[in-house]
């Protein structure tokens, strides 16, 4: 068993939906598709108010290399392009499409293409055209990750099926129900990268998925269940014993990591030309009536997904997009599901605990998977001493939340780190 990184925490797994098969949510009446759903520049709109679109119509073109295209996820009419609530960046330009209840695709998605004859460039092009981004949460454009500079030799491709966030089971279900597609997609990635080794990484709380992959004759690394096992750098360290240098990327140690969902989506794009218009996510928490894994069209408002899951139980206090450790709490439930949304969690009312003074218990130091001293960095940020915060590694922080999870004084450390990082970037611009 590989665990292989220092720090980390063991929150209760609460993966109650791991046996619920993925349900397909009916096509929503209206979708709100933001032009920015990925790391990098927002896509440039290709449609205007009043245009008719079909499923898969490209409505936004990738702007530059680090960007991704966006596509209509339902068939209907563009009723407006305005700023709308966005689950990650607060508010962003959105294309609102009203559906016409038909399942018209812009292309024939049943025609299977032969993928073996395609060159690497053609494969990459298909992935880029389909607007594929990392579905693990960070939503980094996949074609960028698949095109490392010439001088970076990639020897290992890791397919990340850890799903170390508690509660979430979407990746787990996807692995169980679509293992073959994921493996085929991973082989395409391997071909593009010329990587000699392909490893599937799964935490050992998903024994059935591990066995399923082993039966398919692929190499599986069974990893100890420990949060954040699925974080890129920690994962590489655990499997390959290689440490990505500070400020570096996995390719600096000859490695690329892709999420299982991304492999699935990429293969659908290559084989059928199907762009990224839907994704699997977990709906859970005590505040929602039915907990399940759902295949949802991109742009579906969260409240429509909740309605599909039987609605709220009582009055919800907290709605989180993502997992409990890194997800983002929303102020309203009309935000749309975006490409990076891995879960919708509805938490019941919970008594807020007041931030106490740091008692230097060092639980944050012991739990930090990046080897940082969170309480020291936090003091520097509080005193607006951003230079020292940087020296102590603020920019190395991956915001996994282990420190704040452990803190006995309930100090919202991640909040201070996000603030500190944004201040450093703001100051570096001026």
């Amino acid at each position, binding site marked *: 068993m590989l665990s292989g990184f220092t720090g980390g925490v063991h929150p209760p797994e609460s993966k109650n939906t791991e046996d619920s098969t993925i349900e397909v949510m009916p096509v929503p009446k209206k979708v709100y598709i933001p032009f920015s759903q990925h790391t990098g520049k927002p896509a440039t709109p290709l449609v205007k108010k009043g245009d008719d679109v079909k499923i898969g119509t490209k409505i936004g073109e990738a702007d530059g290399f680090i960007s991704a295209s966006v596509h209509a996820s339902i068939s209907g009419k563009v009723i407006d392009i305005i700023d709308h609530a966005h689950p990650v960046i607060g508010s962003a330009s959105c294309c609102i499409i009203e559906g016409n209840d038909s399942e018209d695709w812009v292309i024939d998605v049943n025609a299977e293409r032969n993928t073996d004859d395609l060159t690497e460039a053609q494969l990459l092009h298909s992935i880029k055209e389909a607007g594929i981004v990392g579905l693990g949460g960070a939503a980094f454009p996949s074609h960028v990750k698949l095109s490392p500079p010439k001088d970076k030799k990639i020897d290992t491709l890791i397919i990340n099926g850890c799903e170390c966030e508690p509660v979430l089971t979407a990746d787990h279900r996807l692995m169980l129900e679509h293992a073959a597609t994921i493996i085929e997609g991973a082989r395409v990635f391997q071909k593009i990268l010329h990587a000699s080794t392909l490893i599937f990484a799964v935490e050992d709380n998903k024994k059935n998925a591990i066995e399923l992959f082993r039966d398919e004759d692929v190499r599986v690394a069974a990893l100890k269940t420990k949060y954040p096992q699925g974080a890129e750098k920690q994962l590489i360290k655990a499997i390959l014993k290689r440490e990505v240098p500070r400020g570096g990327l996995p390719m600096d140690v000859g490695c690329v990591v892709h999420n299982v969902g991304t492999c699935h989506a990429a293969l659908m794009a290559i084989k059928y030309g199907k762009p990224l218009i839907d994704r699997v996510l977990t709906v859970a928490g005590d505040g929602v009536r039915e907990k399940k894994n759902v295949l949802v069209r991109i742009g579906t408002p969260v409240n429509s997904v909740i309605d599909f899951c039987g609605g709220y139980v009582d009055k919800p206090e907290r709605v989180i997009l993502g997992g409990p450790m890194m997800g983002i709490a929303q102020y309203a439930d009309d935000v749309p599901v975006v490409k990076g949304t891995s879960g919708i969690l509805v938490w019941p009312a919970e008594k807020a605990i007041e931030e106490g003074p740091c008692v230097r218990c060092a639980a944050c130091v012991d739990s930090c998977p990046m080897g940082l001293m969170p309480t020291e960095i936090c003091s520097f940020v509080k005193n607006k001493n951003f230079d020292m915060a940087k020296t102590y590694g603020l920019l190395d922080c991956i915001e996994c939340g282990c420190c704040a999870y452990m*803190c006995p004084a309930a100090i919202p450390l991640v909040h201070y780190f996000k603030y500190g990082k944004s201040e450093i970037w703001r100051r570096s611009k001026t």
Partner: protein
Amino acid sequence: MEKIEDIKKLFVVAASPHISAKHKTSVAMRVVTIALLPALVFSTYLYGMRILVITIISIIVAVCSEALLERMLGKKITITDGSAVLTGLLLAFNLPPGVPWWLPAVGSAFAIIFAKQLFGGLGYNFVNPALAGRAFLMASWPSLMTKEWLSPVGGTLSGIDGISAATPLSLLKNPANYGDPQVIIRQLNDFETIRNLFFGKIGGCIGETSVLFLLLGGLFLLFLRIIDYRIVVGYLGSFALLAWLLPTQGSVLFHLFSGGLVLGAFFMATDWVTSPITRKGRWIFGVGCGVITIIIRLWGGYPEGVSYSILLMNVFTPLIDRLTKERIFGEQRKKGVKK
């Protein structure tokens, strides 16, 4: 403008993570207090009800001075976090059983007011308040702090019949003052004395007598990971090693089980606020305590060195933290290679 109905629809936003381990500071303080209770009960059995009275006085004064001072300074009253109770309890543990009633009160008030609250309260004190209180009492009323020993029930003060004016460590320090040095040293190291030290049938401060009960509480805290093993192992390990290597007339077990070493290593050196936060730092801190303790015991002016060793290392804590920063993930191990 949003209507009230619209605002009511909004949810609570907060930074991630949205779950927590629920190890709250106040809970940890209470657990440490509970871990000390067996030793307190045993001490009350040994010396009678006055032990309970002294402890209660110490705790009440600690809590009251915290509340009073916070009120005077216009700060939030934080007595419910349990840290003042723990300080009062630990201070009482560091007093001889026969001290006058007012002594714990003065010590507790000093510990809370001068060592803790004037530096900013919980989390900001740079030395262990209970030990600072004890040091203050030692400096102000040395005779009361070193002579008020009582004979324990079912045993003798030193484990040696006929001598009732000294603790085992003062016997070891100046055996000639109490009789034939060779006889005393032999008696100190015999199995009977070691056993008495371990079970606590022997004289000493209120809380330090029974190694057994302190160990029970200490191991409980280690198991819960409330205290760090590095400090405990570093302290006891380095101390035992030096007690074995250095010239002393006491055996290693005698040194380990006598005085306040076990109390200090498990319950005082491990104080969160005043010990380093880095992993390496906690080793250094523990080893430092061990080295200073044995130096004081063998060559210092006092028979016992636990409290001063911890106080000294408390002062070094910020420096240790700065010099032993954790290695950031991906940082080059080699020297001189900096990004």
